[in-house]
Structure formats: C-alpha cells, structure tokens
C-alpha cells in the first residue's frame, strides 16, 4: 500500500510517513516497538536485528539522526530509555523529527517528567495508548503532546508515589508481590 519511489527525487505525496517507532532500554532491548509497513522489516526477527544494530550505532553518539538500512532514524535518549522514529530515507526528516518530539514529550508528560525505564514500565498501558494516538498504521494521527496525553492518560485516581498514603503504597506493593509470586 505504501509506495516509496526512490528513483524520483521529489517527496511522494503520501500520508504513510512513519515506518516504525520504538522505545529501547539501555541494553538495546525492546520495550515497545511498532512497524507500520508490511514491506519493511516484516518479521520480529528482522526487527530485533535491526533494533540491535540501530542501538549499537546510536547509544554512544548523541547525534539525533542516522541513516540505516534504507531508513532515516531520528532518536533521543534519556537516562536508560532510547526513543526512535523511523521513516523512508526519501522522506522529510523534519516531519519525522516532529513525530519523535511528540512521542518523547507525550511520554515525558505521562511519566511526570521521570523519563526512565522503571517509571515507564509502571505506566506501560498509558504509553501504549500514546503510541496508538500518535501514529495509526504509519499515518501521523496527532502531533500535539497535550492532546495526545489527554487521550492516553485516563486514570484519574492515579496519584504520584510521593503523594500516596503509606497504606496505599503498601496495598500496591502487596498487589505486586502476589503478582510476582503467582507467576
């Protein structure tokens, strides 16, 4: 469905701009990843190999953008998280950059600026919803972080850890303990 003409030099008038988005941890393991083009990295195996390669090439150099395997990848990292947005190498890089910015900013708001793996894992459901609100099948659905967050962070009763009572914390830890125990 997505037609990328590498011969022609003009950008293709298409909405299918994002080929993939992912968040990796500081060892290059996938936390979340979505690929939107059936022809690009169709199997999980190829995707993971690509992610490893991408991580190895980017985790030390904080250089914002890299061309890899025919894809333009823009990236940003914080503490132990790496955010990537991939697009065709024949695509407006700044559009991809704006997708990355909205991804990072939305996640950052969702995590109350504590952009690190632990906090992200605790809020994985909201981050998944944010992914879904940013990009639908390769089409940029929304780029405004506040409206993305408005539709992804829905849990009213979720109070930040510091403001929870001791009983609440104990209750939550207990829940988690049983969870782990049962597994």
């Amino acid at each position, binding site marked *: 469905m997505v037609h990328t003409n590498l011969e022609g030099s*003009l950008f293709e*008038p298409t909405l299918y701009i994002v080929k993939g988005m992912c968040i990796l941890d500081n060892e290059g393991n*996938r936390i979340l990843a979505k690929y939107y083009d059936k022809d690009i990295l169709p199997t999980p195996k190829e995707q993971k190999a690509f992610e490893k390669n991408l991580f190895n090439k980017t985790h030390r150099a904080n250089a914002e953008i890299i061309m890899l395997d025919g894809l333009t990848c823009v990236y940003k990292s914080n503490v132990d998280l790496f955010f990537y947005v991939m697009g065709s190498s024949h695509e407006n890089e*700044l559009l991809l950059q704006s997708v990355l910015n909205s991804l990072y900013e939305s996640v950052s708001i969702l995590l109350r600026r504590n952009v690190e793996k632990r906090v992200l894992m605790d809020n994985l459901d909201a981050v998944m919803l944010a992914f879904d609100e940013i990009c*639908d099948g390769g089409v*940029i659905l929304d*780029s405004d972080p506040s409206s993305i967050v408005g539709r992804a962070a*829905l849990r009213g009763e979720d109070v930040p850890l510091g403001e929870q009572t001791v009983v609440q914390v104990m209750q939550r830890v*207990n829940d988690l303990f049983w969870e782990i125990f049962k597994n």
Partner: protein
Amino acid sequence: MSSFRRDKKEEEDTGGNIFQNLDKTALLQEARYFNSTPVNPRKCVQILTKIIYLLNQGEKLTTQEATDIFFATTKLFQSKDVVLRRLVYLCIKELSSMAQDVIIVTSSLTKDMTGKEDLYRAAAIRALCSITDSTMLQAIERYMKQAIVDKNPAVSSAALVSALHLSATVPELVRRWVNDAQEAIMSDNAMVSYHALAVVAGARKNDRLSTVKLVTKLSRSPLRSPFALCLLVRYAAKLAEEDQTEASEPYLEFIECCLRHKSEIVVYEAAHAIVNLRKSARDLAQAVSVLQIFCGSSKATLRLAGARTLAKLTTKHPNAVAACAVDLENLISDPNRSVATLAVTTLLATGAESSIDRLMKQISTFMSEISDEFKIVVVRAIRRLCTKYPRKHQSLASFLAGMLRDEGGVQYKTAIADAIIALIEENPDAKETGLAHLCEFIEDCEHTSLAVRILYVLGREGPKARQPSRYIRYIYNRVILESGPVRAAAVSAVARFGATCEDLLPNISVLLARCQLDDDDEVRDRAIFFSAILNSNDPQLISDYITNVPTPNPVLLEKALHDHLRLNPDKPFNILSVPSSEPTKEPEEAPVQIETRKQPVVSLEELYSEQLKVVPGIEKLGPPFKTCKAIDLTEPETEYRVRCVKHIFARHLILQFECLNTLSDQLLEKVRVRLESAPGYKILCEVPCEQLPYDKQGSVFCLLEFPRGPIETLGTFGATLEFSVRDCDPTTGLPDGGDGYSDTYPLEEVDVGCAEQFRAHVAPDDWEASWERAASAAEASDTFVLSQSDINEAASAVCDHLGLPKAAISGDAVKEIRGGGLWREGTPMLVRARLVASQGSVTMKLTARSPREDVATLLLAAVG
C-alpha cells in the same frame, strides 16, 4: 515489617518489572480471569497490558490461542472503565490479523463509535475499520460520514485516517465520502485538515484536472496546518513536474511562497521541491540560501536535511553547491558523523582540482574518527575523484594506500582495493604505483577473498608492466606463507607471468615445479596443469587456458549444468555455451550518498531466465546464448505498449513481447502476436498471454528455429498484436458481462541482424597474435562506402552493427575497429575494420576470420 522490606528490595532488583519473564501459557490462563463478574478493571488492565506487551515483543500465537484471548477480551465490554476499554480496542487491533471471527465485536464497536463518550468514539472508529470488511462497511457508512464532519477533532481525524486506510481496498466506497472530507479540509484543527486533504486528493489521484483545481484553490487560501501545507507542496510539485510548461509557474510561485513560512518543516519541504524542480541556477538561489541556513543550525536533523539536499544538487548544479563550500567545510567536524561524511563527499564532488590536496589533508584527520561504513562512502568519493582528475593520481593513490594500512573491516579494505584497482585500469600512469601499493598490501592481508582478488589483478596487469619480474617475488611469497586458496591463486598469477613474459619462463617453470609438491590438492593440480600448458609451447593453448580464459556467469553456469545433468548426462558439457560474465558495470548512482548499499548486478540473461520457463520445451534448447536489450515496437505514449526482447539460443530464437495495457477501462484477453515470418525461419510454438489487465505487464512468447545457413538468418518479421477486448469498470478492473470483440494493433517490424547472434568483446591485449594465428582460418573481406560523412559516427555505427562496445575503436585519422567474439553455435570469430574518411564519405575495409566461412560472410553481409 521486615518481610515488607524484603519485598521492596526484590522489587528493586527486578527493576519493578512485572513484564520480565512473561510466559505465554501462564498468561493464557490469566486471560480466563476476564470471564469473572463483576469485572475488576485494575487487574484486567494489568493482564491486558501484559498480553499486548507480549505480542509487541514478537511472541507468536496460534490461531486458536489468539481466538481464545480475543473472545475472552470481548467480555470486558461489560466494564465502563475508560482505560480498560481503550486497551480492549488496542488488543482487538493487535489480534485482528491472527484470530478468527473477529467481526463478532462489530456491534459493540458500532455502539461505542456512535455513543456519547468522546474518548471511546475516536478509538472505536479506528478499531472497527481495522477489523471490518467491505460488506460490513455499508452498514456503518452513514456513521462514518457523520464522524468525518464531527466537531470533535479526534473523532474526525480517526474517521479520515480510517477512510484513507480503507481506500486501498474499497476505493469506490471511500470516494462517496469525499464531499464530507472536503468540508473538513477547512477545519481549524491542524491534523483534521491534514488528513482530510489526503483523503480528498487520494480519491482524485487519477484525475489530473480536479487535482489541479484542488491545488489551485488551496494554494490561494492558506492552510494553517504545517503538515497539510507540506502535503500540498508535494502535490503542487508533482503537478509542476508533470507539466514542464509555463502553466506550472503558479505552482512554483506557491512553493516559493512557502519558503517564507514560519515552520521549518514547510520551509524545508518547499526548498527540497524547488531544488528538484527548478532548472536554472538563478531560480535556485532562494532555496539554496535557506539550505545554507539549515547547515548552520544547532539541530543535527536540520543540518543533515540541509547538507543532504545540497548534496543532491551536485550533479545538476555543481556551481550552486560550490558557493556553499564554506558552510560545508564547517560541517566536516560535525559531531553527527552522517552530516560530516555528507559534507566531505559533497566537497570532494564539487571541489576544484586545486583544492583537493587541502581537502585530503582535512579528511585524513577526520577519517580515524568515523565508522567503517562512512569510510567506505569517502573511499567511493575519492575513487570518483580519481576518474575526474587523472592528474591527481599520485596523491590520491598514496592517500588510499595510507588508508589501506589502517585498521578496518573487510568491506572497508575491499572498497579501498576496488578503488586502487579501478585506478590501475583507467589510468595507465597510475598503474605502476597502484600495483606497488597492492603488492605491499597483500604482504600483510588477513582476508582471503581480498588477497585472491588482488593476486588475480597482479596476474593480469603485472606482466604488462615495465618490469614484470618485480612482482613475482611478492606473489611467490604468498605461495610460501598463505593458506590453500591464496596459494592456488598465487600459482595462477605466476602462470600468467610465464605465459606472457618469455624471458621469465625458465624461472617460472622452476617455481611451478616447486609448487607441485604442495600439501593442498588444488595448488598441486593448478601447478601441474599450468606447467604442462606452458611446456607445450603452443601459443593457442596458452592463450585459451591461461591468458584469455572466459569466465562464465556463475548463476547461468549452475543452471546450465543442472539442465545438462537432467537431459543428457552422457555427453560432454560445453562450457563455452554459457554466457560469460560481463565486466560488472558500476550502476549509475547518485554521486553523494551516506549509505553504503550496493544493488546486486544482475545480467539480462539471469533476469529473464525465470520468465522463459513458461515456454514449452525450453530446457531442450540448451542455455540461453544471449538476451538482447528490449526494443520498443510502439510509440511511447500509445494505448498498448509493446517491447520485444530477443532471446538467442544455439539454434533457436525466442521473441518475447512484453505488453502493457494503458487503458484503465479495458481488459485484454487472448493476446497473441501474429508474425509474418522471415524466409527460412520456422515458427515452432507460441505462448499467448491469456489476460492483460490495466497497468500489469504480460508477455507473449514466440519460439522460432533459425534457418540452417547463417546468411539466411538476417531478416525482418512483420508483427501484429491480436487480442479480444472486454470493457471493464476502471475503478474495480472487473469486466462487464459482454463477450468482448476482437481487435488488432499494428506493431513495428522486428529485425534480426548480426549483432544479436554474436557475443562480441573488445580485442584482447594479444590481439595481433591471435589475428595472425587465425590466418589459416577462412577469411571474408570486402570494402564498403558508408553513408555517414563523419568518421566517428561511422565507426560507432559499425560497432553497433557488429555488437561491439565502443571501446573497440582506436586510432585517429584512420579508425581501426578490432574485436572478437563467439557465434551462437560456438564458432569463434575475429573481425577487423579500417575506416578512412575521404572526400566527404567514409570508406571501410572489413575483414572477418572464422573457422566457418559462412559465419565470416554473415558478418560482412550484416554491414552491406
């Protein structure tokens, strides 16, 4: 309390990660919890999150497992919890491709998408459209139209994006929503207007006139959304590209207007379009200055965008790029290595000869800091530089040699070796130094494949050098020190010296004799083989088996051997029947790029061998001798486009007609080509093309047998395309009920000449000797007066006729064309032509020698 502390500690250790070590079977058990009532949202959210996480990690579910989870998930529609509901949608989307009977949730989703809760509606529309099929869509069409113009931007966007996805499968349905989408373009919300524009323009993409109207209208009333503007710029640019006349001026003006937009995205989009559209350097000035500013930006993405677009200009307007040299030089030390490499390669491509030395000095500091793949890009840029400025070979070669000594992977080393070899081949002045660098390199080369290649080059080029004996020591050192494959290659290289340099022959014989005691079978075999041939003193043998050995195309050789074993394993195999591999031509590539990817070079024969399998009895014809380039049999802009590809076999000819139907309202059936055969040819069979839908290429094959005598093979075939037409719906491509009517379409004639039947090559280095050896063979000779008045034109026309490359031409006032080749049945031939211009006309004396006189005469007849 102590237990609590321990819990807390354990949690720390695992990083608080309940998602670690998830197990699929356990999770499937957990999913049963969804069935319990009342639903516990918190717990269900957690399980759902785990399921989606597991799927996201690439875990495979069987259809049964996916269906089980899917049905369990549908139970959760009972809960009113927002997060839970949203995760259910997400899960439905993830599972829709794996589970069965997913349409069962249609009614629940339809209820949500028409309900009051805005948070549900948008997501429900997207989930619904990802599971539904065209029949179900009719039922929700009314809701979709309403949703497109909904006040809530999220709902409107969701409907529009879903419509866009659906337009790939059911375009005619989506086309009915265009009026609503049109309304949405003017929405205040940036995203809605972006999505709506894509839906409207997408529905009209085959209708140029209404696209023109749309773009013209929108370019006057400025869109607020930067994304929508980018898309509009792309449509405008496309229109301007298709129509190169004055009429495209308004589009270009609009795009230039966008250069002053406040959003960088739009500015870049416009600059990129202008760089690709505008012809004259003056028109480019504005865009180039914008890109220059980008190059100085603090954001790496902007710098890369600027540098990349400037780099693209190098082929068309090197001067425009040269003016930005200062900006690019600043980028050489850029922390982003992609940007730095681009800047360097662009500078190398545009720099003047005088500035090369300075640039090389700058690069050498930068080379140690970049990764191998970027180094390869730089090496390629230097290689092009060698071609551009042959006089600079000294400094460039020493620079390459320096890099060869540095650390690096095999690909990087190969790229450098390739560059040096290319330099040796192209530039006679650089030969000696280049070979010396290579010799030095193989002294300490850990990559077997590379060492073998270099030894081959030394064997080929070394004997032609001023002092061939210098290289023998290097090569013989390999025999003493290296592994089996390298030793074998070294033996072959040494043998070539023996074959070409007679004064070295006694020494070479001694070396080869020593190699006959080697441990490795291959090395011993080669040494004995070459010794025997060299000792025979037969120049023909030496030429055929040492100096001018044909290298068959490996893919075709494998196929030919397979066919041979299957059909007649008892007969000897003739290796000459396999097309030899062409010297690999560098694919035309953009001069500056940052990625090091190489398209594999595939020969025409390999390309078509798969398609030819449909011809019955093809395997009996033997391997294809040659596949010729396709020739157009119709004008480029006609209803039906037909190209003819000639496949030559030893005694047969296959004409492949590649047909393309460019009428969207027609379906062609039973397409065949009626041939008026040239005398002597026998049409053996014909494979028609049963169906030729719009815009899909189909092929008709005709198998013919060549006439016995080579002279009779020259001929012309009249050709007519015959088919029956059925009218069909242009959007769906489905034919109407009628039977259709038959029709014909005249094609241009197909010529079979001389060039097709020969695999010709440029004269080998020892051409004089082979020509003399062939003196005993049959010779045909004649003098022609050519129609061309210019001697250069005449020479290249003769080359075309004989199928020789232009490199076969030598000489100035008296042009001499020398070449050799192989006729389709395996007979070798040599040909020489001398052309002299006199009194406004060109006279040519053409002589052909071949063991078969009729083949020699064929060459002459083709010209006459």
